[in-house]
C-alpha cells in the first residue's frame, strides 16, 4: 500500500487513490457481505471532444463498444454467457465524460470478468454492429426526439440555442449530419484517441477481493496510451435580451416551455450550496412545495408542474431524484414549465373563452420570471430559508440510496475536485447563512437575458409569437368553473402578471425538423 497515495474518507468503506504504477484513479466502496459488484469505468471525454462534422461520435463509439462483441466472443455469445447470472452493463455519454457500468453477482465474478475486459480492451467494432447502432441513433435524432415528448424536445433544443458556437452545442447523441458522416474507421480512430489509459478512472463497489481490482487496474493499462487533449470550453455567451424560439408542430396538445441562461458556477464552488437553497425553494424538481409549482399549478391549475434548475438534470420527465454520470463545467439556470394549454383547445372546451387569441404560455412565462424578480428583490424569507436548508440536508441523502448510485456520485465528486460531494454538501448547507443565499440570488438570478424554447401547436405559434414580440398584455384565461372560486388576491396578482414587462428582443418560429441537423 505504500506505493499508493491514499485518501481515506470519513464515511466508512470509501477509499480514493491513484495507483502509483498505473496512474489510474480508483474509488473503492466496500460493501461487505453484498453479492452484487458494480464496476464503473469512466473516461474524461464526452461529446465535447466530438470533432467538427462528426458530432455524436463519442456516444456512438461508447454505444458500439457495449453493443458489440470482443476479440473472444461475439455479441450473441456474450448474451448467452451472462444470461444465467443476470449481469447487465451499459454506457452513458454526457458532455464531458463517458461512463461504462457493469453490474454482476459476486458468484459469477470470474466468469463475467473476461466480458468486461474484452468490451473495454478489444471491442470488435464490426460493420453490422456499427450499422445497427448508427441506424438506431439516426432514428432517435430524426424521429423519436421530435415526436415522443415535447418536453424533452424543448429541453434539448434549448441547449442547442444556448450553447451555439461552443462544444456544448450539439446533443450528446449528435446531429443528423454528424452521424450520417461517421464511418467505422472514424469510430476506431476515436476509440484509440479518446478512450485511453490517460483519461480513465475506475470505481468499484461490493465485496470484491483485492486481486479482482488489481487485475482490472493492471488490464486497463493496455488501453491506448495516446495523450488526450480536451478542448477549451469557452464561457457560454450570455444572450442579449430574451430570445424566443418557437418550434411549431402539428397536433401538439399544449405548449412545452424551457428557458435558460448560462451561470458561472458548479459543484466545485462552495457557493453552489447557497444557490441550491434558493433554487430548491423556487422550483425543486417534482416537488409540490416549491414556489413556481404552488403559483402555476396548485393555485391556477395551468399545467402538471413547474421547476427550476442550476445544473443539468438527466431525464427529468422520468426521474424523481437526480442521476450521476452527468458532471459538467458549464451550467445554466433553467425554468421548466410543463405543457400549458393552447388557445384553440381552450376555445373548444369553454364557450366563455371564445374570444381569446392565445393559450397560457405567455402568462406562464411572465409569472415565472416575475417570481424570480420578486425573489431577487425581496430575498428569501428567513423561515423558508431554514426549512429549505433542513429539507435539502435530508433530501440529498436520497440521491445515494444504492451502492451503484453512491459510487456514481463519488466518481462525479472527483470531476469537481471534491472527494465526497454529498457529505461535503451536507456540511456546506449546514453552514450556509441567509445572507449568503441572498447574495447568491443577486449574483446568479436575473430575467433580463435568456433563451426560451417553446414547442407548440401550429395553430398557436403565430399568435403566440406576435403576443410575445409585442409584449401584449396576456390576461390569464380561466374557465368560469375555476375563476368563480378564486380569491381576490389571486385575481389581483394576475393583473400584475398579465402586463409584466419582458425584455424580449427576438422571436422566431421554426419547423420541428429544423433542430439537431448540423
Amino acid at each position, binding site marked *: 500500500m505504500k506505493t499508493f497515495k491514499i485518501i481515506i474518507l470519513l464515511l466508512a468503506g470509501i477509499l480514493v487513490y491513484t495507483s502509483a504504477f498505473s496512474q489510474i484513479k480508483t474509488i473503492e466502496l466496500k460493501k*461487505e*457481505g*453484498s*453479492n*452484487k459488484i458494480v464496476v464503473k469505468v469512466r473516461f474524461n471525454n464526452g461529446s465535447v471532444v466530438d470533432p467538427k462534422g462528426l458530432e455524436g461520435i463519442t456516444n456512438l463509439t461508447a454505444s458500439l463498444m457495449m453493443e458489440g462483441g470482443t476479440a473472444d466472443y461475439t455479441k*450473441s455469445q456474450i*448474451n448467452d454467457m451472462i*444470461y*444465467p*447470472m*443476470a449481469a447487465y452493463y451499459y454506457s452513458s455519454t454526457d458532455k464531458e465524460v463517458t461512463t461504462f457500468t457493469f*453490474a454482476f*453477482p459476486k*458468484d459469477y465474478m470470474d466468469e463475467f470478468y473476461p466480458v468486461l475486459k474484452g468490451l473495454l480492451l478489444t471491442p470488435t467494432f464490426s460493420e*453490422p*454492429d456499427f*450499422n*445497427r447502432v448508427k*441506424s438506431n441513433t439516426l*432514428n432517435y435524432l430524426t*424521429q423519436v426526439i421530435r*415526436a*415522443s415528448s*415535447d418536453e424533452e424536445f424543448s429541453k434539448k433544443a434549448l441547449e442547442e440555442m444556448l450553447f451555439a458556437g461552443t462544444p456544448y452545442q450539439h446533443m450528446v447523441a449528435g446531429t443528423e449530419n454528424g452521424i450520417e458522416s461517421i464511418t467505422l474507421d472514424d469510430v476506431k480512430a476515436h476509440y484509440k484517441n479518446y478512450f485511453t489509459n490517460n483519461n480513465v478512472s475506475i470505481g468499484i463497489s461490493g465485496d470484491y477481493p483485492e486481486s479482482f481490482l488489481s487485475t482490472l487496474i493492471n488490464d486497463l493499462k493496455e488501453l491506448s496510451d495516446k495523450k488526450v487533449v480536451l478542448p477549451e470550453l469557452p464561457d457560454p455567451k450570455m444572450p442579449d435580451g430574451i430570445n424566443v424560439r418557437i418550434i411549431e408542430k402539428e397536433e*401538439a396538445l*399544449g405548449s*412545452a416551455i424551457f428557458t435558460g441562461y448560462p451561470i458561472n458556477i458548479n459543484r466545485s464552488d462552495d457557493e453552489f450550496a447557497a444557490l441550491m437553497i434558493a433554487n430548491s425553494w423556487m422550483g425543486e424538481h*417534482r416537488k*409540490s*412545495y416549491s414556489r413556481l409549482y404552488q403559483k402555476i*399549478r*396548485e*393555485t*391556477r*391549475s*395551468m*399545467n*402538471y408542474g413547474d421547476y427550476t434548475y442550476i445544473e443539468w438534470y438527466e431525464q427529468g420527465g422520468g426521474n*424523481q*431524484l437526480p442521476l450521476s454520470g452527468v458532471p459538467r463545467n458549464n451550467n445554466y439556470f433553467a425554468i421548466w414549465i*410543463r*405543457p*400549458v*394549454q393552447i388557445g384553440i383547445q381552450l376555445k373548444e372546451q369553454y364557450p366563455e373563452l371564445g374570444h381569446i387569441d392565445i393559450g397560457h404560455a405567455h402568462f406562464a412565462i411572465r409569472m415565472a420570471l416575475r417570481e424570480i424578480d420578486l425573489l431577487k428583490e425581496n430575498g428569501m424569507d428567513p423561515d423558508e430559508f431554514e*426549512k429549505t436548508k*433542513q*429539507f*435539502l440536508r*435530508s*433530501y440529498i*441523502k*436520497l440521491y445515494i*440510496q*444504492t*451502492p451503484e448510485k453512491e459510487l456514481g456520485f463519488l466518481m462525479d465528486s472527483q470531476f469537481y475536485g471534491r472527494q465526497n460531494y454529498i457529505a461535503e454538501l451536507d456540511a456546506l448547507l449546514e453552514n450556509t447563512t441567509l445572507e449568503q443565499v441572498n447574495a447568491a440570488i443577486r449574483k446568479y438570478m436575473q430575467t433580463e437575458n435568456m433563451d426560451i424554447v417553446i414547442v407548440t401547436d401550429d395553430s398557436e405559434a403565430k399568435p403566440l409569437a406576435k403576443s410575445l414580440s409585442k409584449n401584449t398584455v396576456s390576461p390569464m384565461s380561466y*374557465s368560469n*368553473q*375555476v375563476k368563480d*372560486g*378564486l380569491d381576490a388576491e389571486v385575481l389581483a396578482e394576475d393583473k400584475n402578471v398579465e402586463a409584466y414587462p419582458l425584455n424580449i428582443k427576438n422571436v422566431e418560429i421554426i419547423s420541428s425538423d429544423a433542430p439537431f441537423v448540423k
Partner: protein
Amino acid sequence: MTKYIYGIVLLFIMVGCSNSEEPSKQKAVEGNILPYPINQKKLDNGLNIAVVEYPSPGLAAFQIIVRVGARDEVEKGKTGFAHFFEHMMFRGTDNYSSEEYSATMKSIGAAANANTWLDRTVYHMTGNSKMLGKMFEIESDRFMNLNYSIHDFKTEAGAVKGEYTKNHASPYAMLGEKTVEVAFTQHTYGHTTMGYWDDVVDMPNQYEYSLEFFDRFYRPEYTTILVVGDVKVDEVYQLAQKYFGNWKKGDFKSDIPIEPVQTEMRYAHVEMAGFPPYMELNYKSPAFDESDMDVAALDIISTILFSERSDLYKKLVIDEQKVRFLSGGFFFTRDPYLYQISTSVVKEEDMQYVKEEIDKALELIKTQPVDEVLLSQTKSNLKYSAAMNMDSPSSIAGSLTFYIWLTGNPESLNNIYKSYDKVTPEDIIRAAKKYFVADHLTISTISSKKEGGIK
C-alpha cells in the same frame, strides 16, 4: 449447472439480520427470494401492516397501497377517476391545509409521490426513518379526514388535464388507449388509467361523485401500509395502531364486469408518418395467481423468447437488423389482461415478416419442449435479476407493493419465485397453447398507412 440452481437462498444479504427480542418479529425463511422476513399484522379494522427491517441507516420507505384503480371505474363517464382522486388526496384536511401538508412533507425531507394504475393507487415516500411518527401522523390525517373545497376540486382537474396533455404527445400513449378499447368490450380494463379525454374535461363537474369515491374505497380493508428500512417492527405496529386504529371499516365492493372470451382477431392503429413503425401483439393473459403454473410458465416464456439471449432477438435485432427492439411479457393484474409482444421495426414494409417470425417462435414454444439447461438458466436469470435489484428500502418496497395490490399479501413475492422454480417444459407447452391463440389477439400498429394491415 448446479450453480444455477443452488446457493441463491441467502443470496444478497448485506448485513445479517439482528437477533432482536421483539416478540412479533418473524425469522428469515430459507428459500425466499427476499432474504429479509416480512412481518405482517392486521388491525381490527382490517388494515394490513407489513414491515421489513432492512439495514439502511437513517432511512425508511413508507408506502400506503390502496387496492383501487381504473379497474374500479365501472360507471359511465367516470374513467380516470381513481387517478384524479389520487391528486385530490394532496388537497388538505381541516388539520393540515394543502400548504401545511406540503410544508410538513418538506420538513420530513422525503422523496414522496403517488401513482395510480389499473388495480391500485400507491402513496409512497422515502426519507428520514427518525421521522416515521410524523409520516404516520400526516398520512393518517389525510386518509381519515380528507376535506377539500369545490374550488380546489375544480382547480385540480386542470392539473390532471395538463398531465393528459403531457402524456398524449406520445403516439405510444395514443395507441395504448386504442388498444385496450378494442381488446376489452366489457371489462373496465378497456380504458386507460388516465381516462378518456371527454371524461377528463368533465372532471370539474364531478365533486359529489368524488365524495362517494372516497367513502367507498379509502377504507382500511382496501389498504396496506408497508414500511421498509431502518425501523423496528413493534414500533411500526404501535404507530399504526395509534394513528390508523380508529379508521372506520367500509363495506363497498366493486361489481367489475366480466370480459367475454374474445373470438376474433382485433386491430388498433395509429397513423403517423415520420415516426418509427411500431407493432404490438396483445394476447389475452391470465389474472395473477402465484399458485397458477400458467402464470409462472408465461413469465418464463417471456424471458426465453424475448430476452437478448433469445434466438428471436439474435435473428431479428442482431443478425437481420429488421427491428430496433423486441420485448415480450405480461402485466400482472387482478383480472385477465394482456400479454404484450412489442417491437419497433426498421422498415414499415417488414412488419408482416416480423409478425410471422414471432408467430414461428410462438408456434415452436407450443410444440417443442424447452431445453432443460435453458430452462434452468432462465430460472437463475429471474432470481438474480430480482435479487440484484433489491438493494435499497425503496426498491424492496417497490417489489413488495406489486404483490400487495395483486393479492393483498406481500408474501406472494416469495411464492411466485417458488413457482418459477417448479415450472417444467410441459407447463410451458400447456400455457403457450392456452394463451397464444390467434382469436385472442389484438394487433396494434403505428405506421404511415391509413390502416395497420397486419395479419
